[in-house]
């Protein structure tokens, strides 16, 4: 048997060896992550706000100028225990969110993996979904009083629903062939949940987290108007009574920062723990 081997042609000149001539297709996906992408959008909004306030397009009666908000922030920090208010709000949000996340995930796994669980759990949750949690607050006040319990229960319930819905949806979307594989390997329910169900439902869970964080903040705003002695909501309510628009805006900005940071944290976690996927996200 004979064969002719064509050796690759040696580069004609030394210059040629440094050439990097490629045919590159136009990128259709979003491409690489921007370095300061995190700041760009919020800074743009801040810039528009500042320009509007400077030129008088946004009158102080409509929206306090950014620098006045910064001053009010300083006043609140030194004279009215702003840090205490922030921490108190954070504590409520984190506690409520924690209960909501655990509850929503457990219920989603129960109803996702067992038909009996589904029959018992899914209906009530869908019914609960169609009743706005905020409309339940008067009832919760009657049950839990007007203190901390009512606030945490409200935040927990309001964040439980998106966690449940998205985790359940992610779980049921797991390829059935993986369950079949797990059956042939002969593992138990516990290992199946740990190695197949939870990681498979993780993308759904993380999406639920993003909604849950927003819902928790929404709940926070409302519950802190009820007999709170501390918290951002309390600060806003007081400012409303005294007509301090700048302080109200301070509260709103803090809510905004909470939400943006929390969402960014969830997404960054998602990129890290979902490294096994190849998506347009990366």
């Amino acid at each position: 048997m004979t064969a002719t081997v064509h050796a690759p042609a040696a580069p004609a000149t030394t210059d040629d060896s440094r050439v990097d001539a490629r045919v590159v297709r136009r990128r259709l996906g979003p491409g690489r992550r921007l370095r300061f992408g995190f700041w760009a959008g919020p800074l743009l909004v801040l810039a528009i706000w500042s320009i509007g306030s400077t030129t008088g397009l946004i009158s102080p009666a409509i929206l306090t100028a950014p620098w006045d908000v910064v001053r009010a922030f300083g006043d609140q920090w030194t004279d009215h225990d702003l840090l205490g208010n922030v921490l108190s709000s954070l504590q409520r949000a984190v506690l409520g969110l924690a209960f909501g996340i655990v509850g929503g995930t457990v219920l989603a796994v129960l109803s996702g993996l067992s038909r009996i669980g589904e029959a018992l759990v899914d209906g009530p949750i869908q019914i609960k979904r169609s009743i706005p949690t905020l409309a339940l607050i008067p009832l919760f006040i009657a049950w839990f009083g007007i203190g901390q319990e009512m606030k945490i229960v409200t935040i927990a319930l309001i964040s439980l629903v998106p966690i449940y819905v998205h985790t359940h949806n992610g779980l049921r979307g797991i390829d059935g062939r993986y369950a079949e594989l797990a059956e042939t390997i002969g593992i138990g329910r516990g290992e199946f949940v740990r190695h197949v169900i939870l990681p498979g439902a993780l993308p759904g869970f993380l999406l639920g987290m993003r909604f849950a964080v927003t819902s928790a903040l929404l709940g926070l705003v409302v519950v802190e108007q009820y007999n709170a002695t501390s918290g951002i909501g309390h600060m806003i309510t007081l400012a409303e009574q005294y007509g301090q628009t700048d302080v109200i805006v301070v509260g709103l900005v803090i809510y905004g920062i909470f939400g943006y940071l929390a969402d960014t944290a969830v997404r960054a976690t998602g990129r890290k723990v979902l490294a096994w996927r190849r998506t347009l996200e990366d």
Partner: protein
Amino acid sequence: MAPHARGLTTAPAVRVRNLHRSFSKDGGVLNGLDLDIAPGEFVALIGRSGTGKSTLLRALAGLDRDVAGHGRVEVPDSVSVVFQDSRLLPWKRVLDNVMFGLHGPGAVERGRQALAEVGLAGRERAWPYQLSGGEQQRASLARSLVREPQLLLADEPFGALDALTRIRMHALLRKLCATHRPAVLLVTHDVDEAIVLADRVILLDAGVVRTDVRVDVAHRSRSDATFAELRAFLLDELGVDEESRS
């Protein structure tokens, strides 16, 4: 090419008697099938589409709980399945996929060894999507063999691979089976693959065994005259006419 008629000296690894399975009321997919597979025996199962190959394999794998039917199926305690898709869990690294469900202190070492056996040493930390199709299928083979199964069920495991990779996989599978000696039932569409790999080729038709031939090791080479004869015979049994044979 004598029909399989070996006296059973040891208890068979697989014993199937009068197996019936049907997906509708009109007709069965398996209609009273009998089959024995000896320990360590490599059986290839061929047949046209819809003749019940996969149904039989799924019955042996215990994956047909929702299918109507009756009959007797006896398989060893330790059965492992290789699917046509590698079925690696995308969220587990390759080594964790191989070790999936294994316990004990030696699990990691066994997993590494199995990966090395299929030529994937060094890829332990890779995600499944980073492997080529052939590598994924090798990883899934490692996942099966690390369990030291007494019965290996393979449902067209090389069906989605290119011709070159297939040839390499054939050699690898023969080598692994020679080392680990599981009984093997390989479902395939490819008559050549069946002859090259198996000790015995079984042809399924209308839900029963229609042909059952032994393949002597000497005739496993494609250049062997008996190979061509056997191939022609099996293609004939499958109803492939002379003209369309390549």
